[in-house]
């Protein structure tokens, strides 16, 4: 089936050179080793620890209401982090994601509020602006060979200025378009949530079963045995999440609040879509190849420059989408949109979730898991009324741990090869 990526690699420790691997070609072992791709395992453990710690400190942490709130809180950052993952996979960086998210949200807001553009069009144009920005920055770094760090740092400053300029003297634009506002603040009917979850789970199991059958027919060795366990875990998580979000979050009030928030569904849809693009399409393969060795990719005939430009364009487009969602949540765009912690949280989310800063390793699911970690820490700290200072320090510590782990496993692998 699909090429094992970082998260699956953890479950499919490959037969190591020189070691007595199994002759039937099946990757050996279930237990991930510290000398390879451990991918998503540390994050999952981290989330478990966080859940336990905060639950002990404040029982409200694990209530459906709070957990759903948490998912809504991380939606904008999660979407931006998907864009970060794409750029990181190339081995590049994009420091402009926050500023771009704010600026493109402002474009949408100004079009909608000051020029009466219909919500769907305004949002699309906002995202389109993001794609163009990414195209521009991508060309500047890939064709003119200016390091992406510098180009996107200039973007960080420049698009921030553009945000202030477009907002004008009022400094704030309040959104009222029902579609835009509803992107994050509305909820899907309960049956729709169940239908989506059931479809997703069914599709996953069917394709796994069918893929296995095709492999057997083709005489190929079966895929890693841990894949089924991973699938079971993922299915349980999806169904459990929908169940939680379908219960009434407002038991003592009226009306009842039930259903999957639309924004959360959008986030998960985007993650699934880009996971498909990165792992199953030729373009995604090219992104990984360029991130692994641009020289090898070039010699193999891969259009490296075009791949880079496309990845930057998509990355900024996703930043814009995240900005639109953030604006929706806030019911407004203001001068601090996209500023502050957005950039660092998005990068931290991608890296904590398991995407490597050095390129070539990672998955879009890492964006989700990492955002969950950061969001959970923030959410838990708020519940415990901790000062922001503590939250910053802890999040910083977690990020440091994640990068160190990535660096360590990478160097162990190089020595062992």
């Amino acid at each position, binding site marked *: 089936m699909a090429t094992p990526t970082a998260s699956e690699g953890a479950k499919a420790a490959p037969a190591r050179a020189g070691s007595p*691997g199994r002759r039937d070609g099946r990757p050996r072992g279930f237990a991930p080793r510290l000398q390879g791709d451990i991918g998503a395992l540390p994050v999952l453990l981290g989330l478990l620890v966080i859940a336990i710690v905060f639950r002990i400190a404040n029982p409200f942490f694990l209530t459906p209401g709070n957990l759903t709130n948490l998912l809504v809180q991380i939606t904008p950052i999660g979407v931006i982090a998907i864009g970060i993952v794409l750029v990181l996979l190339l081995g590049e960086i994009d420091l402009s994601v926050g500023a771009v998210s704010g600026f493109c949200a402002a474009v949408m807001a100004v079009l909608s509020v000051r020029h009466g553009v219909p919500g769907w069009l305004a949002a699309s144009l906002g995202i389109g602006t993001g794609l163009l920005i990414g195209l521009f920055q991508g060309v500047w770094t890939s064709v003119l060979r200016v390091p992406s760090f510098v180009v996107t740092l200039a973007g960080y400053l420049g698009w921030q200025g553009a945000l202030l300029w477009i907002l004008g003297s009022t400094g704030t634009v309040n959104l009222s378009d029902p579609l835009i506002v509803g992107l994050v603040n509305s909820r899907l009917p309960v049956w729709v949530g169940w239908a989506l979850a059931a479809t997703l789970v069914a599709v996953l199991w069917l394709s796994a079963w069918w893929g296995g059958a095709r492999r057997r027919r083709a005489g190929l060795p079966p895929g890693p045995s841990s894949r089924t366990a991973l699938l079971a875990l993922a299915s349980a998580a999806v169904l459990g999440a929908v169940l939680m979000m379908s219960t009434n979050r407002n038991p003592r009030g009226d009306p009842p609040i039930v259903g999957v928030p639309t924004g959360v569904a959008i986030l998960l849809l985007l993650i699934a879509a880009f996971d498909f693009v990165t792992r199953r399409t030729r373009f995604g393969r090219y992104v990984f190849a360029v991130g692994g060795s641009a020289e*090898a990719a070039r010699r193999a005939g891969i259009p490296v420059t075009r791949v880079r430009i496309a990845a930057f364009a998509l990355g900024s487009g996703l930043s814009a989408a995240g900005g639109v969602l953030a604006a929706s949540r806030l019911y407004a765009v203001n001068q601090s949109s996209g500023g502050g912690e957005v950039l660092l949280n998005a990068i931290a989310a991608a890296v904590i979730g398991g995407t490597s800063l050095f390129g070539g390793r990672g998955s879009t699911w890492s964006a989700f898991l990492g955002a969950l970690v950061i969001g959970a820490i923030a959410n838990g700290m708020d519940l415990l009324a901790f000062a922001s200072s503590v939250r910053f320090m802890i999040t910083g510590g977690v990020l440091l741990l994640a990068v160190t782990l990535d660096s360590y496993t990478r160097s162990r692998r190089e020595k062992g090869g």
Partner: protein
Amino acid sequence: MATAGTPTTPLLELKGIHKRFGAVEALSGVDFEVFGGEVVGLVGDNGAGKSTLVKVIAGTYRADAGEYRFEGRRVQLLSPRDATDLGIQTVYQDLALCENLDVVANLHLGREQLTPVVPGVVRVLDELSMEQRAWRFARELHVHIPSLRTLVADLSGGQRQAVAVARAVMWNSKIVLLDEPTAALGVEQTLQVKELVRNLRKRGLGVVVISHNLSDIFDITDRIVVLRQGRRVASLETGNATRQDVVAFITGAEFGQSVAG
């Protein structure tokens, strides 16, 4: 694989190749030919012109003068792509593999097979076909890697070399150029690579091996071509030559010059 090189027509024939870089004459009137089913060793000291010749053959450089014939026809190579299209594959010393991808992905790098998911709209990687093809070539070339889904980063040096060579051979290649294939390898891994080279010969390919390691050269080649200061100074049948002969040609001792010259 059938080849167009018959006992009389070489698969590849270069005549009178000149290549200069500024004031430096890297190649002066060099002839070079490879027959199908033959392994040619290309030896010479540093600066003798080996890599330049390889790059001319691979299409990376264009010769300033001289003839380039492939399967008897005169051809003009404008880029490495032209050479690859003809079936001339080069495996450079750095192997050009992507360590973060598995063996199947590396074997198909740049040549991925696609299959439609939504007819006419969405095409995805045809992992199954690619893996089947990879297994087929791994078996045919006796490449010993337990799982082709292993990431290249987890392979030993010899296995990586095998993957790089297998990739060079998988795509209708007729000539394979190997640049220092055993340089970084241990004893066991070197044996694997040599076996691979013999396999290529059996398949009727023309193989060129550039190496500083004369014992490897004597082990696997049919013919040895020696370059010195941009000129071809010898073409010896491996079976009839001795190491002293070859070293003499490399250093110029046969012309009565001192060994250090």
